[in-house]
């Protein structure tokens, strides 16, 4: 069975890309082995304390807490992109591996398919 790596590169809330990517990941993990890599402003999806009450949109960041329960195998982010944004992993709402360039390339190589959002 093909394994799938989901790559998330868009910030949350400004467009629905992030939310529709997460929907696809949750669906994917019901069918096969899936992992996820956050790159660029996609890292912003993981920032803790998101509160959309006043904005009036869905706070889908709460679903990230359930990724492990859904069976998502590895949850990782780009270390260079983390540093470039002045963030550290304590700012995130879940535990995430941070990978350097070589480790990210290996991560991609070790999956059969890549779906980008």
């Amino acid at each position: 069975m093909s394994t799938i790596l989901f790559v998330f590169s868009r910030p949350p809330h400004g467009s629905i890309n992030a939310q529709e990517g997460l929907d696809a990941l949750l669906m994917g993990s019901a069918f096969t082995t899936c992992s996820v890599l956050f790159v660029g402003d996609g890292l912003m999806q993981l920032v803790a304390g998101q509160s959309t009450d006043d904005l009036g949109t869905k706070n889908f960041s709460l679903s990230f807490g359930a990724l492990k329960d859904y069976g998502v195998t590895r949850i990782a982010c780009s270390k260079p992109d983390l540093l470039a944004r002045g963030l550290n992993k304590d700012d995130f709402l879940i535990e995430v591996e941070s990978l350097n360039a070589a480790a990210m390339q290996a991560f991609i190589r070790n999956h059969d398919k890549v779906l980008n959002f």
Partner: protein
Amino acid sequence: MNFAIVVHGAPYSSEACLSALKFAKAVLASGHSINRVFFYHDGVHTANSLIAPPQDEAPVSEQWQEFGTGNNIELIACIASCLRRGILDETEADRYEKSGSNLAPGFTISGLGQLIDASINADRVVTFGV
């Protein structure tokens, strides 16, 4: 003071459509007026009557309809943008021999001249882009 508001973003796909609505409400709440809201580019998707969003997401398109109708504010969707994107009123549906129309109540399809006219005559123009 009189505002013209231009919306380039589709509901859900982009936050622009929701930001513009919050801005428009604040304009009125601040005692100013709005001469027209012009939906251009993907903004015309706001006028699609067939949108059926999930229960847990804000019904942005419906909220625009209520805002326009409730405050008697013109909501104009650009005709050229609409034709490319499949938003039709009954007249255009007939003209292009399409099976039906899908323009939501409260919206009017009209030409780009309405954008220029609104821009010229407003004191301020604010665009919500994508």
